[in-house]
């Protein structure tokens, strides 16, 4: 069996799991946020009763993160709905905006706070839940109705996916990052190239990446249509997880004779910085060939590109340089926001490097403009801005207005592009 099949076999109480099997799995964690939480709670109450209790108040993790710093009253109402629900249910893990427990982006919060463990099953009401496969678990996005079901029962009927293997070997050249790896793969197989499948990433290159870089790769499995992304746990994974939680976990690994739908091999030494041009994550070109493409702004943030490692990489490019366009710095979580001050390059904090480069002051942590959102959202595209962004999607209108364009890139390519005022290969700035 593959690692995905082994995890699902365990979660469904079976000895074996084949792709295509419809199985009832037990959830270890159900995550929801302010956009889908109220609807999920609505379904839960409608189906299980107004006074029903969630299946396990320590396994339902509620992380408001999408529309937090807006004046929109309905968004405030939605956060309040979560607040009241968390209180009435005695939800142990609720990261409340406006309090010291607030964290920010759900997919960075979950691993930070120790909710991601190898061998487990994690469902979230958000498509980028696949991020957590980087910690060696089965993690996938579901809708409100499915989540309402899990909330009441702790179980979900799912179809076991076939696995596609992506073996990446060799040392990544300087200036090339995990974001470039996943964009390259999506460019090769297309936005529906992995529909219904588990995308399993392996090889020496993957092993050389730290946990945050692995999260960047698994985060975008959904952009190829994947059901989940997954990377086998190793010493780095275990060290990360153990530093965040005392809960026990079980590591699974694919058998040597496990069957895959396909195996794609890559030589990472030949990888270069790439971008996904408008209007699709699979419209991938090299940053070099797009070097004359003028841009209006740069956005560095989100679960995909707003982690500590992303800001370290951006700062390494921006150190001692000046930006030519408005450059938004949006840390994904409170922990990342703090790291902007504590992490240093050559004795200078990241926040100082960004300030001296002329970037905007770091925004409070949230999803912010990754998906546009309410019109007063920080960093939102409201006209026909062309933005190089470290986010995950660039379909029409993704960051706000229909006239705007979003170009997906790594934190290094985004920083290089900010310096040049057009798309730029970070190796050439």
């Amino acid at each position, binding site marked *: 069996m593959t690692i995905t099949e082994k995890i699902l076999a365990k979660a469904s109480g079976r000895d074996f799991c084949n792709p295509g099997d419809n199985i009832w799995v037990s959830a270890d964690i159900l995550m929801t946020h302010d956009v889908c939480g109220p609807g999920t709670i609505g379904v839960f109450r409608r189906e299980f009763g107004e006074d029903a209790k969630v299946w396990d108040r320590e396994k339902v993790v509620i992380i408001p993160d*999408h529309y937090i710093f807006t004046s929109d009253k309905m968004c405030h109402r939605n956060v309040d709905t979560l607040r009241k629900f968390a209180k009435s249910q005695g939800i142990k893990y609720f990261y409340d905006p406006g309090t010291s427990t607030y964290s920010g982006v759900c997919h960075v919060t979950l691993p930070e706070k120790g909710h991601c463990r190898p061998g487990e099953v994690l469902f979230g009401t958000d498509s980028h839940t696949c991020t957590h496969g980087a910690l060696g678990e089965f993690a996938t996005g579901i*809708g409100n109705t499915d989540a309402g079901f899990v909330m009441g029962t702790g179980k979900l009927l799912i179809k076991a996916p076939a696995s596609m293997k992506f073996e990446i070997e060799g040392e990544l050249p300087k200036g090339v990052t995990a974001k470039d790896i996943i964009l390259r793969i999506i460019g090769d197989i297309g936005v*529906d190239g992995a529909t219904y499948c588990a995308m399993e990433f392996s090889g020496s290159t993957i092993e050389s990446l730290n946990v945050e870089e692995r999260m960047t790769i698994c985060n975008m499995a959904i952009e190829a249509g994947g059901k989940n992304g997954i990377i086998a746990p190793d010493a780095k994974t275990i060290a990360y997880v153990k530093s965040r939680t005392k809960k026990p976990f079980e590591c699974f690994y694919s058998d040597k004779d496990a069957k895959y739908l396909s195996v794609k091999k890559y030589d990472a030494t030949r990888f270069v910085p790439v971008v996904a041009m408008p209007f699709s994550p699979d419209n991938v070109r090299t940053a070099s060939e797009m070097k004359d493409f003028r841009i209006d702004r740069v956005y560095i943030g989100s679960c995909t590109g707003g982690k500590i490692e992303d800001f370290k990489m951006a700062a390494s490019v921006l150190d001692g340089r000046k930006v030519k366009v408005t450059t938004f710095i949006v840390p994904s979580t409170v922990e990342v926001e703090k790291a902007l001050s504590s992490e240093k390059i050559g004795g200078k904090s990241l926040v100082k490097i960004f300030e001296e480069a002329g970037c905007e002051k770091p925004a409070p942590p949230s999803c912010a403009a990754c998906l546009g959102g309410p019109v007063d959202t920080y960093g939102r595209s409201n006209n026909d801005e062309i933005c190089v962004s470290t986010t995950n999607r660039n379909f029409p209108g993704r960051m706000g207005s229909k006239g705007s364009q979003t170009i997906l890139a790594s934190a290094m390519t985004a920083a290089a592009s900010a310096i040049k005022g057009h798309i730029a290969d970070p190796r050439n700035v």
Partner: protein
Amino acid sequence: MSKNIIKGKVFVVGDNIDTDQIIPAQYLNLVPTNPEEYRKLGSYALCGLPDSYKTRFVKDGEFRTEYPIIIGANNFGCGSSREHAPVSLGAAGTKAVIANSFARIFFRNCIATGEVYPVETAADNLCKELKTGDEVEIQLDKNELKVVKTGKIHKLKDIGDVREVVESGGIFKYARKKGMIK
């Protein structure tokens, strides 16, 4: 309309119609289980389509569409897991989406909510042959779509168990009907 026959005008779209085009993120402050907000979601269905789409799916100021059937191409519903996507289509009066292929979370959400029938075409040319406004008649029993003007029949893929789940009104109602839950 009987449960077997779905008829009306079609609205034709292209490849990779993602959830941001189906229901832009700024409207996700609406909660689908709230009846008034459910209705409002319908008014915004497919309003994220680029201006190159000259016909609006739901006219300005209205809550319901004239087009109960959407004809899509590849990978319809890709992107986010937001259930607001099939909900907005259903709230607007969409009965079925006929596409070459669907993104999986969207497909699953159609079934779980029972909002629309997600049906795959047996051949990929439907989106090229039909124009927005054409009248069709779908017979689910026969897995057929008939173009009213020409009488031409297009085969659809059998949706299997999906049909009964959507017909029952979604996964919870289906599970109750079958005695799987109380």
